[in-house]
Protein backbone atom coordinates (compact mmCIF):
# COMPACT_ATOMS: atom_id res chain seq x y z
CA UNK A 1 0.00 0.00 0.00
CA UNK A 2 2.93 2.37 0.44
CA UNK A 3 3.61 2.68 -3.27
CA UNK A 4 5.27 5.64 -4.94
CA UNK A 5 2.29 7.68 -6.07
CA UNK A 6 1.80 11.20 -7.39
CA UNK A 7 1.15 12.22 -3.80
CA UNK A 8 4.52 10.84 -2.74
CA UNK A 9 6.20 12.79 -5.52
CA UNK A 10 4.44 15.93 -4.32
CA UNK A 11 5.61 15.25 -0.79
CA UNK A 12 9.14 14.81 -2.10
CA UNK A 13 9.04 18.16 -3.90
CA UNK A 14 7.53 19.80 -0.84
CA UNK A 15 10.32 18.57 1.41
CA UNK A 16 12.96 19.77 -1.02
CA UNK A 17 11.39 23.22 -0.98
CA UNK A 18 11.37 23.12 2.81
CA UNK A 19 15.01 22.01 2.88
CA UNK A 20 16.03 24.90 0.62
CA UNK A 21 14.31 27.45 2.88
CA UNK A 22 15.81 25.70 5.89
CA UNK A 23 19.30 26.03 4.48
CA UNK A 24 18.87 29.59 3.21
CA UNK A 25 21.15 30.96 5.98
CA UNK A 26 24.06 29.13 4.39
CA UNK A 27 23.39 30.91 1.11
CA UNK A 28 23.60 34.32 2.80
CA UNK A 29 26.71 33.15 4.60
CA UNK A 30 28.55 32.16 1.45
CA UNK A 31 27.44 35.11 -0.69
CA UNK A 32 28.28 37.74 1.91
CA UNK A 33 31.70 36.28 2.68
CA UNK A 34 32.71 36.78 -0.95
CA UNK A 35 31.69 40.42 -1.17
CA UNK A 36 34.02 43.40 -0.92
CA UNK A 37 33.70 45.92 1.92
CA UNK A 38 31.83 48.27 -0.37
CA UNK A 39 29.53 45.74 -1.93
CA UNK A 40 28.31 44.44 1.44
CA UNK A 41 26.63 47.76 2.09
CA UNK A 42 25.40 48.52 -1.39
CA UNK A 43 23.88 45.21 -2.50
CA UNK A 44 21.07 43.11 -1.11
CA UNK A 45 22.03 40.09 0.98
CA UNK A 46 20.30 37.83 -1.52
CA UNK A 47 22.33 39.11 -4.46
CA UNK A 48 25.46 37.18 -5.39
CA UNK A 49 28.77 39.10 -5.41
CA UNK A 50 29.71 40.75 -8.70
CA UNK A 51 33.05 38.99 -8.68
CA UNK A 52 34.54 36.26 -6.53
CA UNK A 53 36.62 38.07 -3.96
CA UNK A 54 38.59 35.88 -1.57
CA UNK A 55 40.19 38.93 0.01
CA UNK A 56 38.16 38.54 3.20
CA UNK A 57 39.50 35.05 3.71
CA UNK A 58 43.07 36.15 3.11
CA UNK A 59 42.69 39.02 5.55
CA UNK A 60 40.97 36.96 8.22
CA UNK A 61 43.49 34.14 8.02
CA UNK A 62 46.48 36.44 8.24
CA UNK A 63 45.36 38.03 11.52
CA UNK A 64 47.81 37.37 14.34
CA UNK A 65 47.84 37.41 18.12
CA UNK A 66 44.54 36.65 19.81
CA UNK A 67 42.77 36.67 16.46
CA UNK A 68 44.93 33.98 14.90
CA UNK A 69 42.24 31.75 13.46
CA UNK A 70 44.65 29.09 12.22
CA UNK A 71 46.27 28.83 15.64
CA UNK A 72 42.82 28.47 17.18
CA UNK A 73 42.06 25.74 14.66
CA UNK A 74 45.30 23.97 15.60
CA UNK A 75 44.51 24.18 19.34
CA UNK A 76 41.00 22.87 18.73
CA UNK A 77 42.37 19.90 16.79
CA UNK A 78 44.90 19.03 19.52
CA UNK A 79 42.42 19.41 22.35
CA UNK A 80 39.69 17.45 20.55
CA UNK A 81 42.06 14.64 19.56
CA UNK A 82 43.57 14.48 23.05
CA UNK A 83 40.16 14.41 24.72
CA UNK A 84 38.97 11.64 22.43
CA UNK A 85 42.09 9.60 23.27
CA UNK A 86 41.49 10.03 27.01
CA UNK A 87 37.80 9.18 26.62
CA UNK A 88 38.40 6.07 24.55
CA UNK A 89 41.06 4.73 26.92
CA UNK A 90 39.43 5.51 30.26
CA UNK A 91 35.88 5.15 28.98
CA UNK A 92 36.45 1.67 27.57
CA UNK A 93 38.37 0.42 30.64
CA UNK A 94 35.84 1.77 33.11
CA UNK A 95 32.88 0.77 30.97
CA UNK A 96 34.31 -2.75 30.68
CA UNK A 97 34.68 -3.24 34.43
CA UNK A 98 31.26 -1.69 35.10
CA UNK A 99 29.57 -3.88 32.51
CA UNK A 100 31.32 -7.13 33.40
CA UNK A 101 31.37 -6.87 37.17
CA UNK A 102 28.32 -8.18 39.00
CA UNK A 103 29.15 -6.37 42.20
CA UNK A 104 26.70 -4.05 43.88
CA UNK A 105 29.32 -1.34 43.67
CA UNK A 106 29.50 -1.45 39.95
CA UNK A 107 25.74 -0.86 39.78
CA UNK A 108 26.08 2.08 42.15
CA UNK A 109 28.92 3.48 40.05
CA UNK A 110 26.87 3.02 36.92
CA UNK A 111 24.06 5.16 38.31
CA UNK A 112 26.60 7.69 39.53
CA UNK A 113 27.84 8.03 35.93
CA UNK A 114 24.28 8.23 34.64
CA UNK A 115 23.48 11.16 36.93
CA UNK A 116 26.75 12.84 36.00
CA UNK A 117 25.63 12.91 32.35
CA UNK A 118 22.70 15.15 33.27
CA UNK A 119 24.49 17.14 35.97
CA UNK A 120 25.31 20.53 34.45
CA UNK A 121 28.93 21.61 34.51
CA UNK A 122 28.26 25.24 35.48
CA UNK A 123 28.28 24.73 39.23
CA UNK A 124 31.48 22.69 39.19
CA UNK A 125 33.17 25.12 36.84
CA UNK A 126 33.73 27.75 39.54
CA UNK A 127 35.84 25.54 41.86
CA UNK A 128 37.47 23.80 38.90
CA UNK A 129 38.55 27.15 37.56
CA UNK A 130 40.02 28.19 40.89
CA UNK A 131 41.74 24.82 41.22
CA UNK A 132 43.15 25.07 37.72
CA UNK A 133 44.29 28.63 38.35
CA UNK A 134 46.09 27.55 41.51
CA UNK A 135 47.78 24.70 39.66
CA UNK A 136 48.60 26.95 36.70
CA UNK A 137 46.46 24.83 34.36
CA UNK A 138 44.31 27.63 32.97
CA UNK A 139 45.35 28.43 29.44
CA UNK A 140 46.97 25.02 29.12
CA UNK A 141 46.10 22.58 26.37
CA UNK A 142 46.85 19.62 28.67
CA UNK A 143 44.63 21.03 31.37
CA UNK A 144 41.78 21.27 28.85
CA UNK A 145 42.27 17.67 27.72
CA UNK A 146 42.03 16.43 31.31
CA UNK A 147 39.04 18.67 31.95
CA UNK A 148 37.09 17.62 28.87
CA UNK A 149 38.10 14.02 29.49
CA UNK A 150 36.56 14.17 32.94
CA UNK A 151 33.49 16.10 31.85
CA UNK A 152 32.54 13.71 29.05
CA UNK A 153 33.73 10.51 30.66
CA UNK A 154 30.27 9.62 32.07
CA UNK A 155 28.87 9.71 28.53
CA UNK A 156 31.75 7.60 27.18
CA UNK A 157 31.42 5.06 30.02
CA UNK A 158 27.66 4.87 29.50
CA UNK A 159 28.09 4.21 25.77
CA UNK A 160 30.85 1.64 26.22
CA UNK A 161 29.04 -0.16 29.04
CA UNK A 162 25.99 -0.48 26.79
CA UNK A 163 28.05 -2.00 23.99
CA UNK A 164 29.98 -4.32 26.33
CA UNK A 165 26.74 -5.70 27.76
CA UNK A 166 25.76 -6.75 24.28
CA UNK A 167 29.03 -8.63 23.77
CA UNK A 168 29.20 -12.22 24.95
CA UNK A 169 32.25 -13.50 26.83
CA UNK A 170 33.12 -16.13 24.21
CA UNK A 171 35.86 -14.02 22.66
CA UNK A 172 37.53 -13.44 25.99
CA UNK A 173 37.29 -17.11 26.88
CA UNK A 174 38.76 -18.19 23.55
CA UNK A 175 41.62 -15.73 23.90
CA UNK A 176 42.26 -16.88 27.47
CA UNK A 177 42.47 -20.49 26.31
CA UNK A 178 45.04 -19.38 23.77
CA UNK A 179 47.08 -18.05 26.68
CA UNK A 180 46.54 -14.32 26.27
CA UNK A 181 47.01 -12.16 29.37
CA UNK A 182 44.21 -9.98 30.68
CA UNK A 183 45.76 -6.87 29.23
CA UNK A 184 46.24 -8.58 25.89
CA UNK A 185 42.68 -9.88 25.90
CA UNK A 186 41.33 -6.43 26.46
CA UNK A 187 43.48 -4.44 24.06
CA UNK A 188 43.95 -7.02 21.31
CA UNK A 189 40.58 -8.79 21.36
CA UNK A 190 37.84 -6.88 23.19
CA UNK A 191 38.63 -3.29 22.28
CA UNK A 192 38.94 -3.97 18.52
CA UNK A 193 35.50 -5.61 18.67
CA UNK A 194 34.23 -2.37 20.19
CA UNK A 195 35.08 -0.18 17.20
CA UNK A 196 31.41 0.82 16.65
CA UNK A 197 31.33 2.03 20.26
CA UNK A 198 34.65 3.79 19.85
CA UNK A 199 33.33 5.48 16.71
CA UNK A 200 30.21 6.67 18.52
CA UNK A 201 32.23 7.98 21.48
CA UNK A 202 34.68 9.74 19.18
CA UNK A 203 31.94 11.41 17.14
CA UNK A 204 29.65 12.47 19.99
CA UNK A 205 32.36 13.56 22.41
CA UNK A 206 34.55 14.98 19.66
CA UNK A 207 31.70 17.15 18.43
CA UNK A 208 30.89 18.41 21.92
CA UNK A 209 34.52 19.28 22.60
CA UNK A 210 35.07 20.83 19.19
CA UNK A 211 32.03 23.10 19.48
CA UNK A 212 32.32 23.86 23.19
CA UNK A 213 32.41 27.55 23.99
CA UNK A 214 31.48 27.94 27.67
CA UNK A 215 34.30 25.88 29.19
CA UNK A 216 36.99 26.99 26.78
CA UNK A 217 36.00 30.64 27.15
CA UNK A 218 36.47 30.38 30.91
CA UNK A 219 39.66 28.33 30.96
CA UNK A 220 41.37 29.55 27.82
CA UNK A 221 39.90 33.00 27.13
CA UNK A 222 42.64 35.57 26.74
CA UNK A 223 45.42 32.96 26.89
CA UNK A 224 47.81 32.00 24.10
CA UNK A 225 46.04 28.72 23.53
CA UNK A 226 42.49 29.72 22.65
CA UNK A 227 40.34 27.24 20.79
CA UNK A 228 38.59 28.12 17.58
CA UNK A 229 35.23 29.19 19.10
CA UNK A 230 36.96 31.48 21.61
CA UNK A 231 39.22 33.01 18.96
CA UNK A 232 36.18 33.50 16.75
CA UNK A 233 34.22 35.14 19.57
CA UNK A 234 36.91 37.70 20.38
CA UNK A 235 37.83 38.35 16.76
CA UNK A 236 34.22 38.88 15.68
CA UNK A 237 33.67 41.12 18.69
CA UNK A 238 36.32 43.43 17.31
CA UNK A 239 34.82 43.52 13.81
CA UNK A 240 31.54 45.27 14.77
CA UNK A 241 29.46 44.70 11.64
CA UNK A 242 31.89 43.93 8.85
CA UNK A 243 29.72 40.99 7.92
CA UNK A 244 31.88 39.92 4.98
CA UNK A 245 34.87 39.42 7.31
CA UNK A 246 32.78 37.91 10.10
CA UNK A 247 31.36 35.38 7.66
CA UNK A 248 34.79 34.54 6.32
CA UNK A 249 35.77 33.53 9.87
CA UNK A 250 32.51 31.63 10.35
CA UNK A 251 33.09 29.70 7.13
CA UNK A 252 36.68 28.87 8.04
CA UNK A 253 35.46 27.60 11.40
CA UNK A 254 32.77 25.45 9.78
CA UNK A 255 34.80 23.88 6.98
CA UNK A 256 36.59 21.16 9.02
CA UNK A 257 33.47 19.89 10.75
CA UNK A 258 31.28 20.16 7.64
CA UNK A 259 33.82 18.27 5.54
CA UNK A 260 33.98 15.60 8.20
CA UNK A 261 30.20 15.46 8.45
CA UNK A 262 29.55 15.17 4.73
CA UNK A 263 32.26 12.54 4.47
CA UNK A 264 30.94 10.41 7.34
CA UNK A 265 27.34 11.61 7.65
CA UNK A 266 25.98 8.12 8.13
CA UNK A 267 28.27 7.50 11.11
CA UNK A 268 27.31 10.88 12.58
CA UNK A 269 23.60 10.29 12.32
CA UNK A 270 23.86 6.71 13.58
CA UNK A 271 26.02 7.94 16.43
CA UNK A 272 23.38 10.42 17.51
CA UNK A 273 20.38 8.19 16.91
CA UNK A 274 21.81 4.92 18.20
CA UNK A 275 24.34 6.12 20.73
CA UNK A 276 22.04 8.31 22.73
CA UNK A 277 19.35 5.71 22.77
CA UNK A 278 21.72 3.59 24.85
Amino acid sequence: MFRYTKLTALREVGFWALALVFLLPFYFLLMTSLKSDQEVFTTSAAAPPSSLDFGNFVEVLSARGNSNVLWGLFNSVIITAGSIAVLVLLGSLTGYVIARSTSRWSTTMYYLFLVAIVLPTQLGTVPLYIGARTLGLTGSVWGMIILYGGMLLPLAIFLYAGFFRGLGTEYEEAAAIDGASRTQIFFRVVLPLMSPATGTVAILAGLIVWNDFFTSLIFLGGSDNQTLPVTMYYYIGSLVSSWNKIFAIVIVSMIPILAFYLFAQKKFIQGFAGGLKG
Partner: protein
Amino acid sequence: MTQTPTSATRAVVLPEPTGRRARRPRKRPQGMLAFGHWWWALPGILLVLGIHYASTAVGGFFAFTDWTGLGAFQLIGLDNFVEIFSDPTKIGAVGNTLFLAIASVIITNVAGLGIAVGLNRGLKSRYVLRTLFFMPVVLSPLAVSYIWKFIFDYNGPFNGFLGMIGLEEAIRPWLADPEWAIWIVLVVISWQNTGFAMVIYMAGLAAVPVEIEEAAAIDGANLWQRFWHVTLPSIRPAVAIATTLGLVNGLRIFDQIMALTGGGPAGATETLATEVYKESFALGNFGYGAALALILTLIILVFAVIQQRLTGERREA
Protein backbone atom coordinates in the same frame (compact mmCIF):
# COMPACT_ATOMS: atom_id res chain seq x y z
CA MET B 1 34.64 3.67 48.45
CA THR B 2 35.15 1.75 51.71
CA GLN B 3 34.25 -1.39 49.84
CA THR B 4 37.03 -1.17 47.28
CA PRO B 5 39.72 -2.88 49.35
CA THR B 6 37.42 -5.88 49.71
CA SER B 7 36.90 -6.17 46.00
CA ALA B 8 40.64 -5.66 45.65
CA THR B 9 41.36 -8.75 47.67
CA ARG B 10 38.72 -10.63 45.73
CA ALA B 11 40.26 -9.60 42.45
CA VAL B 12 43.63 -10.82 43.61
CA VAL B 13 42.13 -14.19 44.42
CA LEU B 14 40.80 -14.49 40.87
CA PRO B 15 41.78 -17.77 39.23
CA GLU B 16 44.94 -17.76 37.17
CA PRO B 17 44.56 -18.55 33.46
CA THR B 18 45.54 -22.22 33.95
CA GLY B 19 42.91 -22.97 36.53
CA ARG B 20 40.15 -21.09 34.87
CA ARG B 21 38.60 -23.62 32.61
CA ALA B 22 38.12 -26.09 35.41
CA ARG B 23 36.39 -23.47 37.55
CA ARG B 24 34.35 -22.01 34.73
CA PRO B 25 30.92 -23.16 35.99
CA ARG B 26 28.95 -19.93 36.27
CA LYS B 27 28.50 -19.30 40.02
CA ARG B 28 31.17 -16.66 40.40
CA PRO B 29 31.26 -14.80 43.72
CA GLN B 30 29.77 -11.33 43.57
CA GLY B 31 31.88 -8.64 41.98
CA MET B 32 34.46 -10.96 40.53
CA LEU B 33 35.80 -10.23 37.12
CA ALA B 34 36.76 -13.19 35.01
CA PHE B 35 38.68 -10.90 32.68
CA GLY B 36 40.27 -7.54 33.25
CA HIS B 37 41.10 -6.03 36.62
CA TRP B 38 38.79 -4.01 38.83
CA TRP B 39 41.39 -1.27 39.19
CA TRP B 40 41.13 -0.55 35.48
CA ALA B 41 38.04 1.43 36.41
CA LEU B 42 39.83 3.46 39.05
CA PRO B 43 41.23 6.35 36.96
CA GLY B 44 37.86 6.86 35.30
CA ILE B 45 35.94 6.72 38.57
CA LEU B 46 38.32 9.15 40.29
CA LEU B 47 38.21 11.57 37.38
CA VAL B 48 34.40 11.60 37.33
CA LEU B 49 34.16 11.88 41.11
CA GLY B 50 36.60 14.77 41.06
CA ILE B 51 35.43 16.73 38.05
CA HIS B 52 31.70 16.16 38.45
CA TYR B 53 30.86 15.40 42.05
CA ALA B 54 33.60 16.93 44.19
CA SER B 55 33.68 20.17 42.20
CA THR B 56 29.89 20.43 42.16
CA ALA B 57 29.82 19.87 45.92
CA VAL B 58 32.48 22.55 46.49
CA GLY B 59 30.60 24.86 44.14
CA GLY B 60 27.43 24.21 46.13
CA PHE B 61 29.30 25.20 49.27
CA PHE B 62 30.54 28.45 47.67
CA ALA B 63 26.93 29.32 46.90
CA PHE B 64 26.50 30.10 50.60
CA THR B 65 29.59 32.30 50.84
CA ASP B 66 30.62 35.75 49.66
CA TRP B 67 33.89 34.58 48.14
CA THR B 68 35.40 36.72 45.40
CA GLY B 69 37.95 34.15 44.32
CA LEU B 70 40.74 35.73 46.34
CA GLY B 71 41.51 35.72 50.04
CA ALA B 72 39.12 35.00 52.85
CA PHE B 73 35.38 34.47 52.62
CA GLN B 74 32.47 34.26 55.01
CA LEU B 75 29.50 31.98 55.21
CA ILE B 76 26.54 34.22 54.57
CA GLY B 77 23.69 31.73 54.62
CA LEU B 78 21.00 32.41 52.07
CA ASP B 79 22.02 36.01 51.36
CA ASN B 80 23.06 35.22 47.77
CA PHE B 81 19.68 33.67 47.04
CA VAL B 82 17.81 36.54 48.65
CA GLU B 83 19.81 38.90 46.47
CA ILE B 84 19.11 36.85 43.33
CA PHE B 85 15.38 36.80 43.90
CA SER B 86 15.20 40.50 44.60
CA ASP B 87 17.00 41.39 41.35
CA PRO B 88 14.59 41.67 38.40
CA THR B 89 17.35 40.84 35.89
CA LYS B 90 18.10 37.55 37.67
CA ILE B 91 14.43 36.63 37.94
CA GLY B 92 14.16 37.51 34.27
CA ALA B 93 17.11 35.21 33.55
CA VAL B 94 15.35 32.32 35.30
CA GLY B 95 12.22 33.06 33.28
CA ASN B 96 14.15 33.30 30.01
CA THR B 97 15.96 30.04 30.70
CA LEU B 98 12.71 28.19 31.34
CA PHE B 99 10.96 29.84 28.39
CA LEU B 100 13.75 29.05 25.91
CA ALA B 101 14.13 25.47 27.09
CA ILE B 102 10.43 24.59 27.13
CA ALA B 103 9.46 26.46 23.97
CA SER B 104 12.43 25.13 21.99
CA VAL B 105 11.70 21.57 23.09
CA ILE B 106 8.10 21.87 21.91
CA ILE B 107 9.03 23.45 18.58
CA THR B 108 11.94 21.15 17.75
CA ASN B 109 10.05 18.02 18.71
CA VAL B 110 6.91 18.88 16.77
CA ALA B 111 8.92 19.97 13.73
CA GLY B 112 11.41 17.11 14.03
CA LEU B 113 8.67 14.52 14.38
CA GLY B 114 6.78 16.05 11.46
CA ILE B 115 9.79 15.90 9.19
CA ALA B 116 10.67 12.38 10.36
CA VAL B 117 7.15 11.09 9.68
CA GLY B 118 7.11 12.84 6.31
CA LEU B 119 10.44 11.40 5.27
CA ASN B 120 9.87 7.98 6.78
CA ARG B 121 7.93 6.18 4.09
CA GLY B 122 8.49 6.13 0.40
CA LEU B 123 10.58 9.21 -0.36
CA LYS B 124 13.39 8.37 -2.77
CA SER B 125 15.68 11.11 -1.53
CA ARG B 126 15.00 10.72 2.18
CA TYR B 127 18.62 10.07 3.12
CA VAL B 128 19.85 13.16 1.30
CA LEU B 129 17.12 15.23 2.92
CA ARG B 130 17.97 13.77 6.30
CA THR B 131 21.61 14.78 5.82
CA LEU B 132 20.55 18.32 4.96
CA PHE B 133 18.15 18.78 7.87
CA PHE B 134 20.69 17.37 10.30
CA MET B 135 23.55 19.57 9.11
CA PRO B 136 23.01 22.49 11.54
CA VAL B 137 23.27 20.08 14.49
CA VAL B 138 26.96 19.39 13.93
CA LEU B 139 27.91 23.04 13.61
CA SER B 140 29.05 25.22 16.47
CA PRO B 141 26.09 27.09 18.01
CA LEU B 142 28.32 30.14 18.19
CA ALA B 143 29.12 30.14 14.46
CA VAL B 144 25.50 29.47 13.52
CA SER B 145 24.30 32.34 15.72
CA TYR B 146 26.44 34.84 13.82
CA ILE B 147 24.67 33.96 10.58
CA TRP B 148 21.30 34.60 12.23
CA LYS B 149 22.55 37.78 13.78
CA PHE B 150 23.14 39.03 10.26
CA ILE B 151 19.76 37.80 9.03
CA PHE B 152 17.95 39.73 11.77
CA ASP B 153 20.25 42.75 11.57
CA TYR B 154 18.45 46.03 10.90
CA ASN B 155 19.93 46.10 7.39
CA GLY B 156 19.74 42.33 7.09
CA PRO B 157 17.82 40.06 4.73
CA PHE B 158 14.82 39.52 7.02
CA ASN B 159 13.93 43.19 7.12
CA GLY B 160 14.71 43.32 3.41
CA PHE B 161 12.18 40.55 2.87
CA LEU B 162 9.55 42.33 4.98
CA GLY B 163 10.08 45.48 2.93
CA MET B 164 9.75 43.51 -0.29
CA ILE B 165 6.38 42.03 0.65
CA GLY B 166 5.10 45.40 1.80
CA LEU B 167 5.31 44.99 5.58
CA GLU B 168 7.48 48.06 6.15
CA GLU B 169 5.80 48.82 9.47
CA ALA B 170 7.03 45.48 10.86
CA ILE B 171 10.67 46.36 10.20
CA ARG B 172 12.61 46.82 13.41
CA PRO B 173 16.04 46.12 14.90
CA TRP B 174 14.96 42.65 16.02
CA LEU B 175 17.84 41.78 18.29
CA ALA B 176 17.94 45.23 19.87
CA ASP B 177 14.23 45.12 20.64
CA PRO B 178 13.60 44.01 24.26
CA GLU B 179 10.22 42.56 23.23
CA TRP B 180 11.46 40.55 20.28
CA ALA B 181 15.07 39.59 20.97
CA ILE B 182 14.18 36.51 23.01
CA TRP B 183 11.96 35.22 20.20
CA ILE B 184 14.81 35.51 17.73
CA VAL B 185 16.99 33.50 20.11
CA LEU B 186 14.23 30.91 20.19
CA VAL B 187 14.15 30.78 16.38
CA VAL B 188 17.90 30.16 16.23
CA ILE B 189 17.87 27.40 18.86
CA SER B 190 14.87 25.71 17.24
CA TRP B 191 16.41 25.90 13.79
CA GLN B 192 19.61 24.31 14.95
CA ASN B 193 18.09 21.53 17.05
CA THR B 194 15.22 20.36 14.84
CA GLY B 195 17.53 18.00 12.95
CA PHE B 196 18.55 16.35 16.20
CA ALA B 197 14.96 15.53 17.17
CA MET B 198 14.30 14.41 13.59
CA VAL B 199 17.14 11.90 13.64
CA ILE B 200 16.02 10.39 16.96
CA TYR B 201 12.47 10.06 15.62
CA MET B 202 13.61 8.60 12.30
CA ALA B 203 15.50 5.92 14.19
CA GLY B 204 12.41 5.27 16.32
CA LEU B 205 10.11 5.14 13.30
CA ALA B 206 12.40 2.79 11.41
CA ALA B 207 11.80 0.22 14.14
CA VAL B 208 8.00 0.36 13.74
CA PRO B 209 7.01 -2.47 11.38
CA VAL B 210 5.12 -1.27 8.34
CA GLU B 211 2.64 -4.15 8.83
CA ILE B 212 1.15 -2.58 11.94
CA GLU B 213 0.35 0.59 10.04
CA GLU B 214 -1.02 -1.41 7.16
CA ALA B 215 -3.22 -3.42 9.47
CA ALA B 216 -4.58 -0.22 11.00
CA ALA B 217 -5.19 1.19 7.54
CA ILE B 218 -7.08 -1.91 6.52
CA ASP B 219 -9.18 -1.57 9.68
CA GLY B 220 -10.19 1.81 8.35
CA ALA B 221 -7.98 4.12 10.41
CA ASN B 222 -7.30 7.40 8.68
CA LEU B 223 -3.90 9.06 8.44
CA TRP B 224 -4.27 11.01 11.67
CA GLN B 225 -5.65 8.04 13.61
CA ARG B 226 -2.80 5.87 12.36
CA PHE B 227 -0.30 8.43 13.55
CA TRP B 228 -1.93 9.13 16.91
CA HIS B 229 -2.93 5.62 17.92
CA VAL B 230 -0.36 3.43 16.20
CA THR B 231 2.82 5.28 15.33
CA LEU B 232 3.16 7.63 18.29
CA PRO B 233 2.71 5.00 21.02
CA SER B 234 5.36 2.82 19.39
CA ILE B 235 7.97 5.58 19.45
CA ARG B 236 7.49 6.60 23.07
CA PRO B 237 11.12 5.84 24.00
CA ALA B 238 12.26 8.20 21.20
CA VAL B 239 9.98 10.93 22.55
CA ALA B 240 11.48 10.46 26.00
CA ILE B 241 15.06 10.76 24.75
CA ALA B 242 14.48 13.67 22.40
CA THR B 243 12.56 15.75 24.95
CA THR B 244 14.85 15.00 27.88
CA LEU B 245 18.04 15.84 26.01
CA GLY B 246 16.44 18.86 24.38
CA LEU B 247 15.29 20.17 27.75
CA VAL B 248 18.60 19.60 29.52
CA ASN B 249 20.53 21.29 26.73
CA GLY B 250 17.95 24.04 26.41
CA LEU B 251 18.33 24.94 30.07
CA ARG B 252 22.07 25.45 29.58
CA ILE B 253 21.70 27.91 26.68
CA PHE B 254 24.78 30.08 26.57
CA ASP B 255 26.58 30.27 23.20
CA GLN B 256 23.63 31.57 21.22
CA ILE B 257 22.97 34.36 23.70
CA MET B 258 26.61 35.43 23.80
CA ALA B 259 26.76 35.63 20.01
CA LEU B 260 23.33 37.10 19.29
CA THR B 261 22.69 39.64 22.03
CA GLY B 262 25.29 39.25 24.78
CA GLY B 263 22.30 39.15 27.15
CA GLY B 264 20.91 42.49 26.02
CA PRO B 265 19.13 44.68 25.24
CA ALA B 266 19.12 45.76 28.89
CA GLY B 267 19.29 42.19 30.19
CA ALA B 268 16.20 41.13 28.23
CA THR B 269 17.80 37.90 27.00
CA GLU B 270 19.99 36.92 29.94
CA THR B 271 19.83 33.25 30.90
CA LEU B 272 21.11 31.52 34.01
CA ALA B 273 24.21 30.29 32.16
CA THR B 274 25.13 33.76 30.87
CA GLU B 275 24.56 35.24 34.34
CA VAL B 276 26.75 32.54 35.92
CA TYR B 277 29.49 33.40 33.48
CA LYS B 278 29.21 37.13 33.95
CA GLU B 279 28.95 37.12 37.73
CA SER B 280 31.66 34.52 38.36
CA PHE B 281 34.18 35.12 35.65
CA ALA B 282 33.68 38.64 34.40
CA LEU B 283 32.84 40.28 37.76
CA GLY B 284 34.63 37.86 40.10
CA ASN B 285 31.61 37.26 42.36
CA PHE B 286 32.31 33.56 42.76
CA GLY B 287 29.95 33.01 45.66
CA TYR B 288 27.09 34.79 43.97
CA GLY B 289 27.80 33.08 40.64
CA ALA B 290 27.86 29.71 42.38
CA ALA B 291 24.44 30.45 43.87
CA LEU B 292 23.10 31.10 40.36
CA ALA B 293 24.73 27.90 39.13
CA LEU B 294 23.17 25.99 42.01
CA ILE B 295 19.73 27.24 40.96
CA LEU B 296 20.45 26.14 37.38
CA THR B 297 21.61 22.71 38.58
CA LEU B 298 18.51 22.21 40.71
CA ILE B 299 16.22 23.25 37.86
CA ILE B 300 17.91 20.79 35.51
CA LEU B 301 17.75 17.92 37.99
CA VAL B 302 14.09 18.60 38.79
CA PHE B 303 13.22 18.67 35.09
CA ALA B 304 15.19 15.50 34.39
CA VAL B 305 13.27 13.68 37.14
CA ILE B 306 9.87 15.03 36.05
CA GLN B 307 10.65 14.10 32.46
CA GLN B 308 11.54 10.55 33.45
CA ARG B 309 8.27 10.21 35.35
CA LEU B 310 6.12 11.74 32.62
CA THR B 311 7.43 9.75 29.72
CA GLY B 312 7.04 6.67 31.87
CA GLU B 313 8.64 3.32 31.25
CA ARG B 314 12.02 3.99 32.79
CA ARG B 315 14.30 2.45 30.25
CA GLU B 316 16.13 0.04 32.47
CA ALA B 317 19.79 0.57 31.69
